[in-house]
């Protein structure tokens, strides 16, 4: 499996990432891509912006482990994870997870698996600026249970 893991401040281009994924081999029949976007609202408060911090080195290792787990579970041709850090505004992309596979079931499952694990294992932290002030986010229960479903 071809893989790409990037942590960057700069925006990414969907088209470029899609082209790379689909072009790794002519055996690719399915590409599933997930993009997370900064919403203008969270838990009822207006969000003005986010600041994303990470642990350089460990983040890439953790994402690498998640991709290795995905590759063990499903036959995949390529995987891309791009996660942005730094200052982000509502409407900005935070994260892209893309999977290329022969068949769509594998692409969908692996894509959702990777983002579910990334949410609970990769060393990123979000600080949110809202109309009620600024604060570090805490882990969402929904994210913990999403990752837990893969362990059943």
């Amino acid at each position, binding site marked *: 499996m071809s893989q790409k893991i990037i942590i960057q401040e700069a925006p990414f281009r969907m088209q470029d990432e899609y082209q790379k994924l689909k072009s790794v081999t002519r055996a690719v029949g399915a590409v599933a891509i997930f993009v*997370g976007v900064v919403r203008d609202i969270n838990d009822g408060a207006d969000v003005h912006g986010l600041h*994303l*911090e*990470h*642990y350089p*080195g*460990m983040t890439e*290792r953790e994402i690498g482990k998640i991709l290795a787990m995905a590759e063990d579970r499903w036959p995949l041709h390529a995987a891309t994870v791009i*996660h942005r850090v730094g200052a982000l505004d509502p409407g900005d992309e*935070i*994260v892209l997870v893309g999977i290329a596979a022969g068949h769509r079931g594998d692409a969908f499952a692996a894509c959702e698996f990777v*983002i579910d694990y*990334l*949410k*609970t*294992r*990769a*060393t*990123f*932290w*979000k*600080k949110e600026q809202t109309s009620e002030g600024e604060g*570090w*986010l*805490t*882990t*969402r229960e929904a*994210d913990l249970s999403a990752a837990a479903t893969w362990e059943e």
Partner: protein
Amino acid sequence: MVKIVFFASIREVLGCASLDLNIGKGVSLSRLVAMLGEQRGELWCVALTAENVRVAVNQELVQGDPLLSIGDEIAFFPPVTGG
């Protein structure tokens, strides 16, 4: 010498992103935290032993109270919230 790094809310509470500390051989993680508390005050002890603090040694999450080695990188951080 070990390198100690702090992230997110823990970094902010301590007002410190990283520091180097001289330790001898056979020092455990809990002993390291106790040393930081002795040197830097009660705030550090509280912040680093809070229930949901995660610890990584050399960028691998650890549990329990491992022994540290010279040259280790020890990280303290809250639960992750990326994606």
